[in-house]
């Protein structure tokens, strides 16, 4: 088996991978980045399309009975396809506790400590609060609904430069306006000498013995042609996402003997609850199809009382129909989601339907379990979660009704169009599975992202974040990865000496 040497191996190329790759390359280390998915030459490879075949090239998912997750495999990870929403996690998110009353986030990691890294990330992505004159119609309608009821609503912030308002953010920005990682981190990392390899999947990691130094780990890989090879590196940074990083670590237990038993557990999902409503008489039109994809507004009004933020959404037709069946509720529960009634509703979809959704500080109680070659999300539907879902849905419906609008009957479907018959959370905001913690008993990595018991091995992506944050996760993943990268540079690239002593288990491993 061919084996290559490098100083740093980064697995993944999304938000969690970008800072370690860039900062360590800028510090003069040899960096190789492995991305399982295809190369993306942005913006040329992006399309304004509703072709399922295009989306399935990059979008991947896994679903259990009550939770479904979607993620991107491709150069730049989710950055190419997200809606550019770039928000800092609210302070209450860092106060979350587990069932035993212990704080989920390790001491020293909270909003205040992340704020300097948020600033770095925001500068890199040109994050700006949307100007008033650019808020799309659906966002303005949502804001007025909140204003009418005496609720607050803020203009959100986005990673964008020169938005055209095409509304195709989720299929990739063909104008290069969305500040995906292809516009900043990745080219800068390449200029600094980082090597990016796409179509290469890391399949296992094993710790090397002391006689193999300076390399500490060997990562076995398989390329698109099925060829198996390996990398040996002193530092390995895992950033394959909640599912990808967990899958790799679970496959590596034999080679990582001190790995925590918590891998794959404590998965958070941001508690998304989605609804739709029909605008009442006298309301100005919304517009699902023009203006940037995310409608520009977010309300924190119910964060303290209900643990949720509220936003509007503008799903394109493919996204809308693939997610749910909509019915006018006046047709009753027996009305058809196809035929004449559905066509009548779809004719009004663009301008007279408004979609509101909530994201919540739901507990990190999901886990990933093997199902053949897959990892499937398992979520126990507790009374607490059902009550959260029902309460949040009723909150959104009350906003419609309080504004003379009517909630639609929404029935969520699976990938074959079959209706789901129980509460189901779908998310692209999965966090955890390899969470930060004070010890290996309660998590997988420490506050610096170092895997407990395995010095030189790190997790820097959303898998390391231990709880829901009730806002889009991309900026927090990126900021935390900047924080971890700063520590890596300090420790491995000859910066100011402040590296923590390895703990007892890692001394034994060394």
């Amino acid at each position, binding site marked *: 088996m061919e084996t290559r040497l490098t100083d740093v191996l980064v697995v993944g190329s999304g938000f969690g991978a970008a800072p370690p790759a860039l900062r360590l390359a800028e510090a003069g280390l040899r960096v190789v980045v492995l991305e399982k998915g295809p190369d993306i030459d942005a913006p040329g490879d992006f*399309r*304004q*399309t*509703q*072709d*399922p*075949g295009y989306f399935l090239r990059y979008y991947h998912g896994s*679903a259990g009975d009550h939770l479904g997750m979607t993620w991107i495999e491709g150069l730049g990870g989710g950055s190419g396809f997200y809606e550019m929403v770039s*928000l*800092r996690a*609210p*302070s209450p998110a860092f106060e979350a506790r587990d069932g035993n009353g212990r704080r989920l986030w390790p001491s020293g990691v909270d*909003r205040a400590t992340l704020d300097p890294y948020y600033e770095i990330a925001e500068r890199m992505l040109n994050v700006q*609060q949307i100007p*008033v004159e*650019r808020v799309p*119609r659906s966002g*303005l*309608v949502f*804001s*007025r609904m*909140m*204003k009418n009821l005496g609720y*607050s*609503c*803020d*203009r959100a*912030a986005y990673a964008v430069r020169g938005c*055209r*308002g*095409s*509304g195709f953010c989720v299929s990739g920005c063909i104008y290069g306006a969305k500040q995906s990682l292809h516009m900043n981190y990745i080219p800068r990392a390449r200029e600094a000498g980082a090597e990016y390899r796409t179509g290469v999947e890391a399949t296992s990691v094993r710790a090397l013995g002391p006689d193999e130094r300076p390399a500490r780990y060997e990562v076995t890989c398989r390329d698109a042609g099925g060829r198996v090879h390996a990398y040996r590196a002193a530092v390995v940074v895992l950033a394959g996402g909640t599912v990808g990083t967990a899958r790799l670590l679970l496959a590596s237990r034999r080679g990582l003997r001190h790995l925590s038993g918590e891998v794959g557990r404590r998965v958070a999902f941001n508690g998304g609850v989605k609804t739709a409503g029909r605008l009442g008489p006298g309301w100005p039109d919304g517009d699902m*199809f*023009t*203006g940037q994809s995310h409608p520009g507004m*977010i*309300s*924190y*009004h119910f964060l303290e009382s209900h643990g949720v*933020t509220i936003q509007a959404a503008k799903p*394109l*037709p*493919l996204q*809308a*129909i*693939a997610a749910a069946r909509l019915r006018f509720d006046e047709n009753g529960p027996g009305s058809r989601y*196809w*035929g004449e009634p*559905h*066509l009548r509703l*779809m004719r009004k*979809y*663009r*301008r007279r339907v408004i979609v509101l959704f909530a994201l919540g500080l739901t507990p990190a109680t999901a886990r990933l379990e093997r199902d053949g070659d897959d990892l499937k999300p398992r979520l126990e539907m507790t009374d607490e979660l059902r009550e959260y879902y029902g309460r949040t849905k009723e909150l959104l419906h009350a906003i419609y009704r309080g504004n003379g609008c009517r909630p639609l009957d929404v029935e969520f*479907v*699976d*990938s*074959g*169009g*079959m209706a789901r018959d129980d509460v189901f959370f779908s998310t692209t905001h999965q966090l955890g599975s390899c969470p930060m913690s004070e010890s290996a008993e309660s998590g997988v990595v420490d506050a610096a992202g170092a895997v407990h018991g395995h010095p030189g091995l790190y997790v820097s992506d959303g898998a390391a974040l231990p709880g829901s944050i009730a806002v889009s996760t991309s900026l927090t993943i990126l900021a935390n990865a900047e924080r971890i990268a700063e520590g890596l540079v300090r420790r491995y690239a000859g910066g100011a000496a402040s590296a923590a002593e390895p703990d007892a288990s890692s001394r034994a491993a060394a």
Partner: protein
Amino acid sequence: MSAARRGANGRGMGRREALRLLGLAGGAAMLGGCTPVRVFMGWYPSDFRDDQLVRRVLDAFADTVVPGVDAGSEKLARPLYDERFPLHGYLNYLAADLSRRAKYACGDPRFHLLSRADRTRAIDAGLRAGGTTERLYTGAIFLVQLGFFAGFYDDGAGCPAIDFDGRYRPGSPADRTYALAEEFLAEELGHGGNHA
């Protein structure tokens, strides 16, 4: 050997592979105990080995799912024949089942010649059948809707019926927002869009 029996890969299809293909995303849980074996073995009346008859029936099916639009019913049914989706291997069975439902619901097996109301009743019967049949009908409805409303065979065409342009056609900024937008805005609680 018919297309249904050959299956998507052109070979005779075992039950396990047929189950996997029907799951679209691989979810075997949708198939309960009442799976009709004839779905997988291609057992249907010989009439429905006639591709032209099958096409007429499925065009009529698509016209019932999205009625009366100016798409041309053969275009509406196009996703059903798309080999990227697993349903294309089961079209003969679907057409034969629609005929059977039409006969029982309306007394006439010629589904494609029925009124839209009668076709609707026949489809309703298929959806109530449960098991694999329900999943076939649901998947077929789903595909027709996705193909039509998303306009995914032509990025530039979109779906005029719902005023979806498809590929973005630049307009003026005024098209995207409202004048005096600030009058719509509620009090802001955060700073720069962020909560404290």
